[in-house]
């Protein structure tokens, strides 16, 4: 089944030229797909569209449909969307804004009005997944870059999405942290979750089932 599907997506920012046109991408359950392309081709924009951030938070002219497990994203509430698809951005410093690790991971579940007991459980599970259980009460400022990105990932996982979008999530990580995050991705795949990654490095291809290339406003699937 297609967990995430973008059908005939065309987009231009307000007052700008068309960034891409009639783009088709999809990710199945348990699949990991990479999107590559030159700088400025619209990879991050496409990620934001697939996660529903565009047009909700960022305006522009969007045509086409995004389907999450067959349901059109436009018809889904924010609460439903964030429990189906989670997105991790490149810079962890921009994604952490609470004093402690626990506060950071609790933010998402709090927004969904989950009970305190459930929130506590999700914090524990998310920290176990990223192997940072002992950091629960630490200040986020004292963490290294790689640790921050893992906490940002834990904050996303606390919402238990079945689709993960990773927008150049490895680019600022060292080898050790990259290895750990790759392990988490592998684990998510084994759980049957769908992974959509934006990466230009060739180092991550062994994780990947399919590759899309976004160039000159069009996508094409590339044979590995």
């Amino acid at each position, binding site marked *: 089944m297609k967990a995430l599907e973008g059908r005939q997506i065309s987009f231009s920012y307000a007052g700008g030229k068309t960034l891409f046109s009639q783009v088709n991408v999809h990710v199945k359950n348990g699949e990991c797909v990479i999107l590559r*392309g030159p*700088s400025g081709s619209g990879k991050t924009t496409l990620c934001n569209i697939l996660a529903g951030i565009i047009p909700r938070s960022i305006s522009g002219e969007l045509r086409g449909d995004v389907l999450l497990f067959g349901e059109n994203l436009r018809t889904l509430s924010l609460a439903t969307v964030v429990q189906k698809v989670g997105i991790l951005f490149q810079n962890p410093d921009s994604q952490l804004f609470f004093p402690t690790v626990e506060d950071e991971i609790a933010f998402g579940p709090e927004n969904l009005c989950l009970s305190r007991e459930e929130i506590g459980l999700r914090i524990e599970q998310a920290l176990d997944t990223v192997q940072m259980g002992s950091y629960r009460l630490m200040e986020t400022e004292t*963490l*290294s*870059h*790689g*640790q921050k990105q893992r906490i940002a990932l834990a904050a996303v996982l606390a919402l238990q999405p079945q689709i993960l979008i990773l927008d150049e999530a490895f680019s600022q990580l060292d*080898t050790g942290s990259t290895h750990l995050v790759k392990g988490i991705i592998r684990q998510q795949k084994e759980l049957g979750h769908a992974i959509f990654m934006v990466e*230009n490095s060739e*180092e991550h291809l062994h994780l990947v089932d399919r590759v899309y290339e976004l160039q000159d406003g069009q996508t094409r699937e590339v044979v590995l």
Partner: protein
Amino acid sequence: MTAAIALSDLVFRYGRGNFILSCPHLPFAQGELSLITGPNGSGKTTLSKLMCGILRPAQGEVRLFGRSAATLSLGEIGGQIGYLFQDPSRQLFAGTVWKEMTFASDLLGEEQTSSAEKALELLERFGLAALKERSVYYLSGGEKQRLAICTILMGGAKFLILDEPTVGLDRKNREILYGILDDLLAEGRGLAVITHENELIERFSRARRIKLENGQVTP
């Protein structure tokens, strides 16, 4: 020959935390590329900032072209040592590409014709001449980086320190960057590049490797 940068028995301590960086005798020569590697949080950026006088050590000495960094202002250091931030946006503030290139010389009241000639030459060399009138905020990541390097070279720096220059660059801009590094070395400038990327390390496999682990420098 005098080392461009010479670190001697450095100890640096961050104010609040327990992090301590220590470095034994470590020289950096001109015409040589040094790769400063290590995991996130090991102190690479701290070391690079100590090397160019942005940070001052608690103990030990930093000498720049034979002179103690403690006796030099950042302005004096800047004429010899250049620093490229991981985010080049932080060092671009003049509005357009051309204004960026002439910003420092305008402030210093330098002779306009010669600085304009030098600026144009650098922009042409780095493929930015066609973008002279473009706002720096509309440049791509790779273009910003090249412009930041140009502004450093306008100051006459003979040794450049680059902090994670490949982060966020696509394949095409990475290749351009590698070419720039080769050219700068060929001109006899010294380079120290902070990186955690295997690809860059493999590309410059003959470069000197300086490893950092938990604030300890291993030359």
